[in-house]
């Protein structure tokens, strides 16, 4: 466990997983539910002591299915709650995530993904892009998805995640990978500017949370949170409401641009691959190549408008550690305006900047 003693105040040297735990607690986490799976184990291990020390409740669930339904229950009560897992465990959670989306229940899901399909391996992978941004579970639902690249972003994004979950009453997923989860680096453990208090977040769902009707007065009407709408036309109404919410979410789009103004080629990469690509691009710029980096920080909503704006007269190269997932969204956004190339790194491999230099140069040819 990490202690602040002997370090700069507010500075800690931690893994991405530990930064998630610190960020969650500092953002006001009250309930954590999880099940062991590599490479995210430091999150439950740390929270098993840290969270009770901060007055919260930690439960090691019997399965990821159990964990996500505990999240549904705590989220229905309107308290900041989260689960963490990795790829195969997230697959098991998809049913619960769909129910939460259908019932307008807030909650944060951290996915430090691993290689797949199946049991795959425990190395880095971005193969859960589809699972995260296309809803993942059954029915027409969407999760807000944040993709950290550093331990600092792991810490900071937890605050963002809880805010988005409560503002939109929706599941929010943090999508990291083994590199993000396991890399140890300095983190400034200070809540980002403009952070909302947990009390404020909870006040956002005052009108829907279940609590026992007595909390609202002796004669208050009972409340119900549900996703079933059997009467003819009722489900259509529900889905229209959800779609209008998803449209509203579009304004939450976040991305990072670096050296794009003079760029002939823009490399688009998220999470740890965005970091590796940046190193390769820096090297190539020193050699006089006009290459920029575009890193989506939100994968849903996807920064389509920003990419459309950058597309005319340029080439795009999507670099991702999967067999081609985000590239589909880039092609949809660009809609043929500029060429979109793709370079995939196989899940489970550890690649450095060296290995990205040639693929980037090829896209310039």
């Amino acid at each position: 466990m990490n202690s602040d003693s002997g370090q700069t105040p507010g500075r800690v040297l931690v893994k991405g997983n530990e930064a998630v735990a610190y960020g969650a607690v500092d953002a006001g986490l009250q309930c954590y539910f999880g099940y062991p799976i590599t490479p995210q184990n430091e999150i439950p291990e740390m929270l098993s002591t840290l969270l009770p020390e901060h007055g919260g409740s930690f439960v090691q669930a019997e399965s990821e299915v159990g964990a996500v339904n505990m999240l549904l229950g705590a989220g229905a009560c309107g308290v900041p709650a989260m689960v963490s897992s990795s790829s195969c465990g997230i697959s098991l959670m998809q049913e619960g995530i769909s129910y939460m989306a259908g019932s307008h229940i807030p909650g944060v899901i951290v996915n430090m993904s691993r290689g797949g399909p199946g049991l795959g391996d425990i190395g880095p992978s971005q193969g859960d892009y589809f699972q995260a941004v296309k809803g993942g579970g059954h029915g027409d639902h969407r999760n807000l998805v944040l993709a950290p690249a550093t331990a600092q972003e792991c810490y900071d994004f937890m605050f963002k995640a809880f805010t988005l979950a409560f503002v939109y009453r929706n599941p929010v997923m943090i999508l990291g990978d083994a590199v993000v989860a396991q890399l140890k680096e300095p983190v400034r453990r200070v809540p980002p500017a403009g952070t909302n208090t947990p009390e404020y977040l909870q006040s956002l769902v005052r009108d829907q949370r279940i609590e026992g009707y007595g909390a609202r007065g002796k004669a208050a009407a009972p409340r119900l949170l549900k996703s079933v709408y059997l009467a003819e036309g009722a489900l259509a109404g529900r889905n229209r409401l959800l779609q209008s919410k998803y449209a509203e979410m579009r304004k939450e789009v976040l991305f990072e641009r670096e050296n794009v103004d003079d760029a002939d080629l823009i490399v688009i990469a998220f999470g740890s691959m965005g970091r590796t690509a940046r190193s390769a691009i820096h090297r190539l710029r020193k050699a006089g190549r006009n290459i920029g980096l575009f890193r989506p920080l939100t994968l849903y909503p996807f920064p389509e408008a920003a990419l459309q704006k950058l597309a005319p007269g340029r080439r795009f190269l999507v670099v991702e550690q999967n067999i081609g997932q985000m590239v589909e969204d880039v092609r949809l956004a660009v809609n043929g305006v500029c060429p979109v190339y793709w370079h995939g790194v196989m899940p489970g491999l550890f690649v450095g900047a060296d290995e990205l230099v040639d693929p980037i140069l090829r896209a310039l040819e």
Partner: protein
Amino acid sequence: MASAKHLHPQEAETPVFDVNPVLGERATHYCPGCHHGIAHRLVSEALYELGVADKTILVASVGCSAFAYDYFNVDSVEAPHGRACAVATGIRRARPEAVVFTYQGDGDMAAIGIGESLHAANRGEKITAVFINNTVYGMTGGQMAPTTLIGQKTTTTLHGRNFHSEGGPIRLAEIMAQLQGVAHASRCALDSVKHVKEAKKAVRRAFDVQIAGLGFGFVELLSGCPTNWRMDPVSANRRIATDMIPVFPLGVFKDVKGT
């Protein structure tokens, strides 16, 4: 929906049985002869007598009782099929002051949700689980349940449940009683006045142990399903005594007293 006015005693009449405010005055969607109505009534009486309805949260499950929240005047949340005890765990951890209960059928609790149910019980979650055992999947049209009796015909065991290919009926109350976190585990039946009176005490006890902080409260209620048993209500009622109770013995299997 029928007017509930006639349910109240009129002038010069002496009330012997009245609407329970926790259950409200809505007519239910349950079939004639179904015992969900009695089970609902017993739960509502326990909550009413304990005076806790205003801080109670119901976790509804999937099955015929999916719409139990339409009848109980308490805050409610819908759980995915089988997951009610996990949802209730999350609620319990988020709201330590609330009274939390699940209401689940045999498919929901003893098949798809047996894992969540046993582990919530084993953790000693301070929740109450009301388990309706009618030996069949009701909502989906009468398929085999984990509690279906050997030889019982269902839409997926047309020749009767065969032990050698489908196994035998699960006795959940006895399994629950073995878990350390369980404070009360009992089985009752809803087929006679005597049994209903016993069931009332057991349901109350399953809430008492939660409120006293002693652990998980579990009560199994043997119930009739005339529709899916293809029986008239009177014969269905009779079947509980002749066929079910010999396989599912009634009794209190565990009851932890407060110190």
